[in-house]
């Protein structure tokens, strides 16, 4: 069975919510919809305080090249546009809406009927995706329409769909593949049309055999879609690792997947694209896994964007006693939240609750130069060396040792027997090297 060769680790999978069918979470009383939910520039608000909005109405417009529209996920009245604590741990601009009823824009098709035919051209599809504010739902939240615009000097050959869900605990993509298989395969065909490619690969790790079988069966009726089982290994969901595992091509250092003719989209994004293009529905809700060993009812919820995390926790039986840490995303790459008041955003794939005992890092001791971090690095880097260079502020050397290739998967810190926070050092280093390169570019 296929997988990527270089490095990788096997954290305990802990997919405790994989049997829980997707449940619709009740509407919140207040929705907090941040303007910056995508990678790139935040959107600009186009409604004022006091405005009445419907579900699906545009409330902030992504004007910069790399930006995405934001739509209201609820109906009601704009209470204020204010700085609100979000998943980043900082206060950022958000539109706060007092929820009244559940009135949808009439243009949105809310019927459960599956629409298979799509007669739009490539440009029209991309325009539609842009309008509907679709971003990558795997967690990176890169605006999808930008990714689909292939520069004239490049050619896309393959669409790669990421159904790997290699993060432990998370099951939202898994449930989507089981319950919305037909829709997301249609989403894949729409993405293929947008990119003008004949072939798409869907990569799924073989710990989700039911999802694999389901998509294989459905994809058999569509041309050019191949569902490929992959051997479980973290971080297979990394773009470069996934391409390597599926078609054996290696994206060159510092380049995008397009360099080897690939565009990678998450499986959840394919579903959002289906809804946007076929149902005219903006990205206003998503599937979020609420999980953790001490959670009473681990679940997968369909959540309106802007719903406070607290609502999910309460619906799953409340915050467990002795909670130590709440993570937005998975345990390998997720962010620790500072409060349960922060809203679910487009990039929230899961909320993981860890008890006090699990919440602390192992104590740090001297590096014993065992080279395990080098062995597990999926990018072939030397985390121990990069961490040293970063600690000593030797940014140029760090750049030469390709610190910017680091995908921040955390395998190095995960595996370090001395409990050294290698990725912390690397993040600082990447940041500084990035600044250095930008100032250099300005001087020229």
């Amino acid at each position, binding site marked *: 069975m296929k997988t990527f060769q*270089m490095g990788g680790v096997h*954290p*305990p999978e802990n997919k405790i919510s994989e049997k829980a069918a997707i449940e619709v979470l009740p509407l919140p009383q207040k929705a907090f919809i941040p303007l910056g939910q995508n990678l790139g520039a935040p959107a600009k608000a186009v409604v004022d305080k006091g405005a009445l909005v419907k579900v699906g109405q545009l409330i902030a417009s992504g004007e910069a090249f790399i930006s995405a529209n934001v739509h209201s996920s609820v109906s009601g009245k704009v209470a204020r546009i204010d700085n609100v604590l979000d998943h980043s*741990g900082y206060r950022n601009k958000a539109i706060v809406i007092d929820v009244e009823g559940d009135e949808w824009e009439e243009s949105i098709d809310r019927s459960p009927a599956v629409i298979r035919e799509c007669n739009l051209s490539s440009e029209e599809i991309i325009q539609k995706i842009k309008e509907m504010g679709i971003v990558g739902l795997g967690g990176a939240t890169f605006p999808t329409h930008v990714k689909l615009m292939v520069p004239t000097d490049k050619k896309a050959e393959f669409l790669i769909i990421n159904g790997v869900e290699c993060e432990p605990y998370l099951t939202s993509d898994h449930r989507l593949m089981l319950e919305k298989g037909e829709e997301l395969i249609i989403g894949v065909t729409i993405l293929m049309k947008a990119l003008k490619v004949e072939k798409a690969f869907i990569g799924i790790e073989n710990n989700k055999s039911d999802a694999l079988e389901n998509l294989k069966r459905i994809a058999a009726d569509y041309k050019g879609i191949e569902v490929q089982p992959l051997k479980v290994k973290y971080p297979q969901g990394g773009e*470069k690792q996934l391409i*390597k595992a599926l*078609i*054996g*091509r*290696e994206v*060159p*250092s*510092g*380049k995008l997947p397009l360099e080897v003719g690939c565009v990678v989209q998450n499986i959840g994004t394919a579903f959002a694209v289906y809804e946007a293009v076929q149902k005219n529905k903006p990205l206003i809700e998503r599937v979020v896994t609420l999980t953790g060993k001490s959670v009473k009812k681990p679940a997968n919820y369909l959540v309106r964007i802007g719903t406070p995390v607290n609502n999910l926790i309460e619906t799953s039986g409340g915050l467990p006693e002795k*909670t*130590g*840490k709440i*993570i937005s*995303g998975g*345990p*390998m*790459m*997720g*962010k*620790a939240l*500072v*409060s349960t008041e922060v809203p679910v955003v487009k990039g929230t794939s899961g909320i993981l609750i*860890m008890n*006090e005992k*699990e*919440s602390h*890092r*192992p104590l740090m*001791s*001297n590096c*014993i*130069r*065992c*080279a395990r971090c*080098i*062995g597990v690095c*999926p*990018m*072939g*880097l*030397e985390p121990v*060396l990069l961490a040293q260079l970063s600690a000593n502020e030797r940014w140029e050397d760090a750049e030469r040792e*390709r610190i910017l*290739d680091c995908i921040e998967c*955390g*395998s190095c*810190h*995960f595996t*370090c*027997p*001395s*409990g050294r*926070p290698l*990725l*912390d050092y690397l993040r600082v280093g990447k940041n500084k090297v990035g600044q250095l390169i930008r100032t250099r570019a300005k001087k020229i």
Partner: protein
Amino acid sequence: MDTLTISGSPHVFGGQSVKKIMYGVVIAMIPAMLVSLYFFGFGALRVILVSVVSCLIFEYLIQKHLMKLEPTINDGSAVVTGILLAFNLPSNLPVWIILVGALVAIGIGKMSFGGLGKNPFNPALVGRVFLLISFPVQMTSWPVPKPVFSSALTDAVTGPTPLGLIKDGLKLGKTVPEIMSDPTFPDYIQTLIGNHGGSLGEMSAIALILGGIYMLIRKIITWEIPVAYIGSVVIFTGIFWLIDPTYYADPLFHLLTGGMMLGVFFMATDMVSSPMSRTGQLIYGVGCGVLTILIRIWGAYPEGVSFAILIMNAFVPLLNKYIKPKRFGEVVKHG
């Protein structure tokens, strides 16, 4: 909920620790320890105990009083150094010499560089070579193995190692087959199980190989260094043996005698003082093998494992600097 812990990812960990690795090495040394107890009885027990306890005490005292640090003697690294040092000593060594060895190993070999993980040389080997140069007579008079349950009454107290026998025999103008045909010369089976003269831990090749396999399975060591070391020894000695079997001993003899297996599996693979990249480890292993045989065949000492590994330790920073792992995306492949 009173407080939430905030930290960067990752939030789960593999559960490995320095302690687990070090005590894994200790477990791997148990077979060789049992063999030494069987052949040398109380003498072996005395050397091992004195060496381990003194290494622990020296590390504690230096950390607490000289370096003013919180002592970390329960991480197991001083225990490993203590056992390895004992393995490299004859079982009749006076206690005070063992203490000197332990002080040099821990004090100079390890702590003077800053402690665990910072030492360029294998501390146990530093201690052993210091003793070998300072006390050559005591360090090279090896008691003849006398199994605990054997009824044989031998008066012989000490005898040379097989490597020493070869070296001395060649000086007297004998050929290798002549030396080996002497009834007192141990055969391959005896060297394999450890019934021959030598330091207390290097006796039994089979016990050391068992330990090595255990460490490979538990991924405490990687295969590169042992394979490169053994491979280069076989090829290097094989060439000379084929050229002139009357003057050069065969590869199997070289593999099974002296500190070869101890060096291959426990000394050269010390993660602190060996290279980090896989290719670097291969080069290092070959270097160890070639140097060991150079010293054994043409050097003044009959045995060369300790010196070879120490010399290669000195090359490790260079190997780490210039031998890099293959980067992802370095070679563009279209498949």
